[in-house]
């Protein structure tokens, strides 16, 4: 109880500045945190609260102009939750895609990290620089490149497959097929997401003491066993972080879907929660429903993140 100590009356006069100092020291971190917290509050908290508020209102273009709107309780949510489109299309797209993309990103990133860890420093710098290009590529440009690669008539993939006789000369419109559409999105996302995982895991790998591996090797452990019983447990927190972050990113993928052919049409089979929220709000000018979708996405993400974080902290307690 440090706060009770300062109030000893006998030495009041001389002790007070010291107590002030202590208090000051306690306040200092907060004072330093105020600018970022203020910015976060304005740029993040305010929009979130605004979306929450909008999601309980009947808010269309007319309300946007007049600024007046009616409170309709949970109507927006009730309408969305009873819409088969949510359950059959949007939620499936969001969750299944995110699960596959996260798993692929983390596995591929880890494999690349293991490769990097075994390279000589100079080669490693070269390879890391190369994969960083994929990471640095802006989502919009990257997506257009993927669309060109998979162009149904002229794209390199279509041309090669036609030349090999895998698909008929007429071609195949994979953008219209939900599975292939998301396969292309997954390629895009994994391509731009794995470098982060690789570099982060590599940083972790370099801290694993060599003796542990040596001991395991002496005990006769193969490469897989050494990874699974030595590397993975040591790097568990690192894996938790990259998984949580990848999950958050892959749940709220937007540009990579919206820009694809068929990814921006309301009612299409290709939308995920994020794109649906946008199309509802700005395509159909139904900002109340759009906000409700966004709020549901946020809640879903919070739920997933909490599960992950709990798993992570439980691991910490064990050690």
């Amino acid at each position, binding site marked *: 109880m440090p706060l009770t100590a*300062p*109030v000893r009356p006998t030495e*009041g006069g001389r002790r*007070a*500045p010291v*107590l*002030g100092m202590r*208090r*000051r020291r306690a*306040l200092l971190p*907060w*004072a330093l945190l*105020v*600018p970022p917290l*203020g*910015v976060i509050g*304005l*740029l993040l908290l305010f929009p979130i609260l605004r979306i929450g508020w909008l999601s309980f209102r009947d808010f*269309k*273009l*007319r309300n*946007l*102009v*007049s600024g007046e709107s009616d409170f309709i309780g949970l109507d927006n949510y009730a309408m969305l939750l009873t819409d088969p489109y949510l359950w059959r299309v949007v939620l499936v797209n969001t969750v299944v895609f995110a699960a596959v993309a996260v798993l692929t990103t983390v596995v591929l990133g880890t494999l690349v990290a293991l490769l990097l860890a075994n390279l000589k420093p100079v080669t490693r710098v070269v390879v890391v620089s190369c994969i960083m290009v994929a990471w640095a590529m802006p989502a919009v440009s990257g997506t257009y490149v993927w669309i060109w690669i998979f*162009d*149904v*008539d*002229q794209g390199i993939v279509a041309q090669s497959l036609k030349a090999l006789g895998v698909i008929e000369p*007429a*071609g*195949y*419109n994979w*953008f*219209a*097929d939900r599975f292939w559409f998301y396969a292309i999105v997954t390629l895009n996302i994994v391509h731009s997401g794995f470098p982060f995982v690789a570099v982060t895991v590599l940083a972790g790998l370099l801290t694993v003491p060599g003796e542990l591996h040596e001991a395991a090797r002496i005990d006769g452990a193969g490469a897989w066993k050494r990874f699974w019983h030595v590397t993975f447990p040591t790097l568990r927190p690192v894996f938790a972080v990259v998984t949580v972050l990848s999950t958050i990113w892959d749940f709220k993928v937007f540009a990579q879907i919206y820009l694809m*052919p*068929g990814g921006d*049409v*309301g*009612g*299409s089979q290709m939308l995920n929660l994020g794109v649906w929220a946008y199309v509802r*709000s*700005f*395509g*159909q*000018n139904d900002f109340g429903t759009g906000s409700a979708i966004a709020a549901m996405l946020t809640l879903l993400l919070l739920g997933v993140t909490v599960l992950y974080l709990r798993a992570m902290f439980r691991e910490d307690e064990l050690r």
Partner: protein
Amino acid sequence: MARRRAHKYVPLPAATLALALAATACGGGGGDTSADSLQVWIMEGTNPDATAFFDAVNDTFTGQAGIDVDVEFVPWADAQDKISTAIAGGTTPDVIELGTTFTPEFADAGALHDLSGYIDDPSRFQQEMYEMGVIDDAAYGVPWYASIRSIIYRRDIFAEHGQEEPQNWDELRRTALDLAEAEEGMIAFPVPGSAQYSVMPWIWGGGGEVAVQEDDGTWTSTVNSAEGRAGVEFFTGLALEDGLSTTGAVNWNEIDVMESLADEQAIMAISNSSNPKAIIESNPDLEDKLGVFVLPGQESGYTDSFAGGSLLSVFEGTGNEEAGWQYVDLLTSGEYFERWGQESGFFPAGVAEIEAYADSEDPLVRPFATQLLEAGRSTPAVPAWSRVEAEGVIVGMHQDILNGNATVEEATDSAAEAIERILNEGS
């Protein structure tokens, strides 16, 4: 006592918070524009470059009114999102070009300034377009230009293979089949999937209605009638059964169609009246090689085509409404009204101005004028219509058929159902 002393140090975070607030608030208030500059948004799509035209207009306007003009070109595809965002953020322009199908929605929402008091003589404008901007006797838009879609074709290739301009659907199909055989590697007749105005003519031409209002005010769609289906079946059949299009065209919009003509890939395609100029602008080799014919009727005559176009509107509450109107007036009367038509390939939306085109000798203009004057049609002038477009009802129907996800019967049924649901539910 200790508490009071500690208080001394509190201002530090308070000051930083104030600083942070001030710093971030700057970003929010920065959009404020000075009153002596007029913000104008003009749409861009399949029309030729309009920069030079607007430089001239703006010089004239600045000379007359002493107000600088700032024109921003907005791609059609982004227009709706951008306007909604601008309304929400209070950063709307003073003057905006709105497509005929958008105007009722924004007018109904109260975003636009009532221009009835300024317009001297509404009868000089093309009436169908003028009505698109009228709600409860107030006019929220001034017709600027009309656009119409007919078929642009490669005159040189037609001549080479002895083909004539087709006079009905069957001839159109046979011409395309012959050309597809003769010109391997070219696309005889692209059937674009993301171009709803290329689909509507066939619905109308077959005898269906996208939407009609009954006497009791409810809307009915006969896209799924035998007639409507015949039209949809014919158009999609050109791609699915006759292989006259390409698989990739399912993802094409009107700009992609235009590019396929400009790249000398397509032999003929449903195109906008502004396209010939834009195509020649991007590929001068095609000068003198393009021709245009009116969409032929199912048996004879013409098939109705979507007559769109734009109105110019002034946003409400910008404080610049008066100057905005002056700018609209400059564009929709006199010299610039006609000059825009000549330069863009669109038709000035005035009665006298359009009629002047009916006798045009220009083979790239006259068929479009005929189509507009004799076989043009628009979509319902109701605010809810733009939601039918925003939800991609026609596009979705068309793509489902082209992708083989639905039969013509299934797709037209669900489209008709969606159109009726949206229009009857109101806005």
